[in-house]
């Protein structure tokens, strides 16, 4: 088999991606709405996972409260749409709200380092949930917000698809740019990075607000999809840790790790759920434990998986990320 040059590989990858995108574009017209809704949810998780990874995997700041941007976007969107604002404006407002929140907390939160940052961000998402309950003049507290009903599965699907593509491209650009190198240098050794002229705070700030914008949009989209949200639905710990666990499972700090993690765990979840009555969480937990012990870098980075991938590459001469 001819060994393709670098540009050749890139074109092959591009071609594969375009094919995939076209398939995803026409998919909904040929399958059950249920499958469409599953894919839609998959996209939402991918968006969350990838944005989490930028700050967590590349910059080394594990933001367990990442989901809060999602919830803020969802609530902003819902409050405005119930008030009668036009839909596109609501989406834009949602993005602005979560970015604004990120800006607000970035200064204090980045004074906290390492393990403490992990705990602090977890505490933040719990706090935001409490605020959602208590500020009931704004959020209707435990009653939740009921959006004007309507069936827009297809719109949601396409928008989620578009959002996912945007996230993937953004991540690709970040990873392969000077900005990305800066993030990695912060992860490896922040003090040294400072010494070498990396404006650590500026980088942290930018990465943070970037990682907040997409979930804000995703949250708004999801609220629109569900037609009803309440504090536990968009801030609850049960759901908040899921995309993060998926990313950790798939492989942090890699281009496709989070996607792999999301897809595999998602398929497993769907398969397990409907087959057995009990022990879904337990099986999920066992998988997490096994990965934690044997492949803590994540599936994508584990040596065994990489060895397997090499074999596959050898067979088909494809370019792996």
């Amino acid at each position: 088999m001819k060994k393709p040059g670098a540009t050749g590989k890139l074109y092959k990858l591009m071609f594969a991606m375009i094919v995939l995108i076209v398939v995803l574009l026409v998919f909904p017209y040929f399958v059950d709405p249920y499958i469409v809704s599953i894919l839609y949810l998959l996209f939402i998780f991918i968006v969350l996972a990838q944005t989490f990874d930028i700050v967590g995997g590349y910059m080394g700041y594990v933001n367990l409260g990442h989901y809060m941007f999602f919830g803020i976007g969802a609530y902003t969107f819902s409050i405005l749409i119930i008030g009668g604002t036009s839909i596109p404006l609501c989406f834009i407002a949602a993005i602005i709200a979560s970015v604004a929140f990120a800006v607000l907390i970035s200064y204090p939160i980045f004074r906290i380092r390492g393990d403490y940052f992990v705990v602090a961000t977890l505490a933040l998402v719990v706090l935001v949930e409490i605020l959602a309950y208590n500020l009931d003049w704004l959020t209707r507290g435990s009653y939740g917000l009921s959006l004007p009903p309507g069936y827009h599965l297809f719109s949601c699907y396409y928008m989620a698809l578009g959002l996912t593509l945007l996230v993937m491209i953004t991540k690709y650009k970040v990873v392969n740019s000077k900005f990305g190198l800066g993030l990695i240098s912060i992860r490896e050794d922040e003090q040294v990075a400072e010494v070498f002229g990396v404006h650590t705070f500026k980088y942290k700030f930018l990465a943070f607000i970037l990682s907040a914008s997409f979930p804000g949009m995703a949250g708004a989209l999801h609220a629109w999809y569900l037609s009803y949200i309440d504090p536990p639905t968009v801030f609850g710990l049960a759901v908040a840790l899921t995309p993060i666990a998926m990313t950790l499972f798939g492989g942090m700090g890699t281009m496709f790790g989070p996607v792999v993690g999301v897809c595999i765990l998602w398929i497993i979840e769907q398969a397990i759920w409907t087959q057995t009555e009990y022990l879904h969480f337990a099986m999920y937990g066992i998988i997490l434990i096994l990965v934690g012990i044997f492949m803590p870098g994540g599936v994508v980075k584990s040596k065994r998986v990489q060895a397997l991938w090499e074999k596959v590459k050898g067979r088909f001469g494809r370019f792996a990320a």
Partner: protein
Amino acid sequence: MKMTTLYGIFLIVVIVVGGVGFYAGTAFAPEKIVEKEVKPPRTIKLGTTMSVTGKYSPSVERWTALTKEFVKMVNERGGIYVAEYKTRLPIEIVVYDDKSVPETSAEMIERLITVDKVDFLVGPDWSPIGFAASVPAEKNKVPIVMANVLSLDIYKRGYKWIFGTPIPCAERWEEYYFPMIMAQTPKPKTIAFMTEDLLYCQDVRKFSKLFAEQYGLTIVADEVFPSGIKDATAMLVKIKPLNPDIVHICAYEEATIVIARQMKELDINPKDFHSIMGTGKAYEGLGKLGEYLGGTTQWIPGSPQLVPYIDYAELLKRADCDVFKYTWTTSRMSSYLIMLQAIENAGTLDRAKVRDVLATMTFNTPIGHVKFKDDGLARNPAFPGQWIKGKFVVVGPEAAATGKLVYPRPTWAQIEKG
């Protein structure tokens, strides 16, 4: 081609996809309602989600077994007569675990409709879950009779395909409690409310307060506390000096237990202590202190049954389901029975026709007649009771009572001694 140009093109494609998708989706989305073929004799397929795991699971424990036994019993007796097929058809109920998460329930409902291709939906339970689950049902025009879903907001959305039979509904929850308690001597004058900050508790509180005012009680305290509360001292310290005659708790069992214990610690002794979830679980958890706890029950074992297709008492026995432990069982069973009656009455499995029957007919359930109002919500009351010597005694209304309320309630110190 330069890389930047390529990316630029990609970016444009993406934005176009997003934008076009938005408008295309809204304009051209096909009405993907799964078509039902009318084929000769088949099974009536019902679908539901249950909170087998997660925070509502304690109340749901025996319901998987109960559902299985229900299906067995109905089929043993021949199934449901559907005029369209000129024969009796067996039934099947597909159950998914919604993990007590509204979103999951909505997803599973979607799946039940499109993948499992159920004819109709029954359940789920609990207001937040009902809120989310009703959306796909309505979108796909599948009639759904929800069970313990009482929050009024759910029914105010103008949905046509959803129905709910919570027992009791928020408006009538304490309907029999207040006249009963006001008939006691010495007549109570003051009442203190403590409510858990959750959708369903807040709804019941709203109406209970109305009843209190209606019957001339003075509301001396109206506290709201967050779910998962550990220390109620801040609240109780305000209540103690007021010495209310009645302490009324709108909360789940866990909070009821915590508050009861702390009331005992602070030696707050009302003449009546009543919780909307004064269920068997609360009684169990309180041990000795559970005596004289006031609660509610949906159904009184031994009351005449007018229900078709099954023997309710026998069903409960087969599934080993104690209605005092699993207080909300009857509501769920009613949703099953109502759906089956609607099908039989409509004589067809056509969803629109069954939906019309649901909206207009009066149904037989273990608690009596149920008719849905215009908004789809059935409004039924329940029976107040008190735990006396380990048994739940129904204390009102007079016609239904199985015993007398112990009033005024002994003090905590006396209860502890036994």
